[in-house]
């Protein structure tokens, strides 16, 4: 069996010298697919994603991208390897214009990124309209688009989103999910953590249900939505 494109394999670890939060947790995503991590509060969803991105110590297990072991790399180095990360909060430069936010996203690129910016504007037309406005003045949903756009500027092969729909209205949430599907269609793998489990699983190729830092259920989005136990415990019947 060949390795998935990005895999956090049986990861165990926690923040700094603190106790372990993850226990033999495995998260993976295939090329061009959407993988979603769901679970109850405090299950270690965001932690699992941060572990994949190198933001906490993985004491055992490994993270591999395209077959290469990247466990020891810093988050910055992972960005250079083709991973994009959108934090849950403080994910834009509020005092800078939308366009400058995108430019900063492309900071590590030395080639011409005009094309990438055009693609981002195509994906999020509202950003093109507001490109000279300060990002901090935009609405919640628009700010999330800026955040995703910023992460896309490095032309990542995999995009990681930490609760992209936290705090936005249901309509905006649907729109954001549509955009995320569009991003996946361009061949970028998506790994995201979501509170809105049902909606997220509906668009997911693969779903991971975490409980207390361990894999509780794994399967395609449809399988998990159909699984009576998952429904009962996590989806409210």
């Amino acid at each position, binding site marked *: 069996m060949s390795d998935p494109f990005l895999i956090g394999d049986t990861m165990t670890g926690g923040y700094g010298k603190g106790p372990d939060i993850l226990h033999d947790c495995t998260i993976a995503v295939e090329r061009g697919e959407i993988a979603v991590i769901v679970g109850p509060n405090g299950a270690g969803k965001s932690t699992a994603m941060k572990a994949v991105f190198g933001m906490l110590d993985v004491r055992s297990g490994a993270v591999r991208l395209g077959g290469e072991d990247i466990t020891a790399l810093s*988050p*910055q180095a992972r960005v250079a390897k083709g991973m994009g*990360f959108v*934090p849950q909060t*403080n994910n*834009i430069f509020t005092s*800078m214009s939308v366009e400058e936010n995108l*430019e*900063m996203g492309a900071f590590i690129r030395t080639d011409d990124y005009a094309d990438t910016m055009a693609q981002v504007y195509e994906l999020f037309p509202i950003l093109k309209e507001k490109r000279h406005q300060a990002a901090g003045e935009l609405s919640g949903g628009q700010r999330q688009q800026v955040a995703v756009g910023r992460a896309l500027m490095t032309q990542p092969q995999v995009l990681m989103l930490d609760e992209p729909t936290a705090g936005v209205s249901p309509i905006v949430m649907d729109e954001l999910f549509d955009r995320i599907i569009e991003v996946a269609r361009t061949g970028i793998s998506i790994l995201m953590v979501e509170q809105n489990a049902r909606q997220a699983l509906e668009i997911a190729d693969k779903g991971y249900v975490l409980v207390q830092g361990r894999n509780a259920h794994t399967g395609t989005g449809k399988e998990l939505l159909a699984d009576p136990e998952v429904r009962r415990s996590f989806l409210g019947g």
Partner: protein
Amino acid sequence: MEFLNAFVALSNFVLVPAIAYGSQLALGALGVTLIYGILRFSNFAHGDTMAFGAMCTILVTWLLQGWGVSLGPLPTALLALPFGILGAAALVLVTDRAVYRFYRAQKVKPVILVIVSMGVMFIYNGLTRFIIGPDDQRFADGERFIISARDFKSMTGLDEGLAIKTSQGITVITAVITVALLFWFLNRTRTGKSMRAYSDNEDLALLSGINPERVVMYTWLIVAALATIAGTLYGLDKSFKPFTYFQLLLPIFAAAIVGGLGSPLGAIAGGFVIAFSEVTITYAWKKVVTYLMPEALEPDGLLQLLGTDYKFAVSFVILVIVLLFRPTGLFKGKSV
């Protein structure tokens, strides 16, 4: 005619000095605000950085004067300014490497960095006094006035004269050029934008691959340039004395805070607010008012709200008012 005389007197004693002083404060406050925005602490050594930079400029000026080099009507110090900036830049970069970097790596609380900057302040102050001594130094040369009061009177036939010192003209022109360059750099260049990004959101800047050490280095270089320019202009306009630079710390901080710490635009606005308040409140208005009032109503007193020695009180009161009613400053600064 009376009105014109009043206006000329006002310009001569209030507007022109305040614009020059405001420009100097604005340059100083820009340095403070940049350090606050990027390195996230209030740098108590800033006044002494200004003194050190100005001192380097003065030493090179003397050397040039010794060689017989001059700029004609302009002060030789302008020619020496780049060397002064180099001196200050070397000093702050060495300081950053030897002192601040250690605490940055430790991620200490900002107040610890403020105390560290107190130590640096002692050292800079000692260095400056050690090299050039604690006394007044003269280094201005060239023409003293762009237009002198007597020329102005004979040109216009007014009773009041308007004198514009060369140093005042140079201050304003240099400040405008410096600020224009700074804003071009911050808003148009990749490095400048990365500095703004770092100041705005450190974690996200790191995620975007911005190298913090590079940002910090550029910040110090810019701060050294701003401090040296501000210090030299102040020295040309008033006089160079190490201790006065230390005392400038208060109006400079007041300007930066009034404008909103971390906001470059605010620093400039703050500089002028403080300068104009200081000059207007400590100016004796008798002369101006005499021109405007009918003779019967002429005031007997000097109409001076406060003695010039209370100029600190002015910065302070404005500072307190702004802090009480608008804690983030006129332009939204960081309120952390």
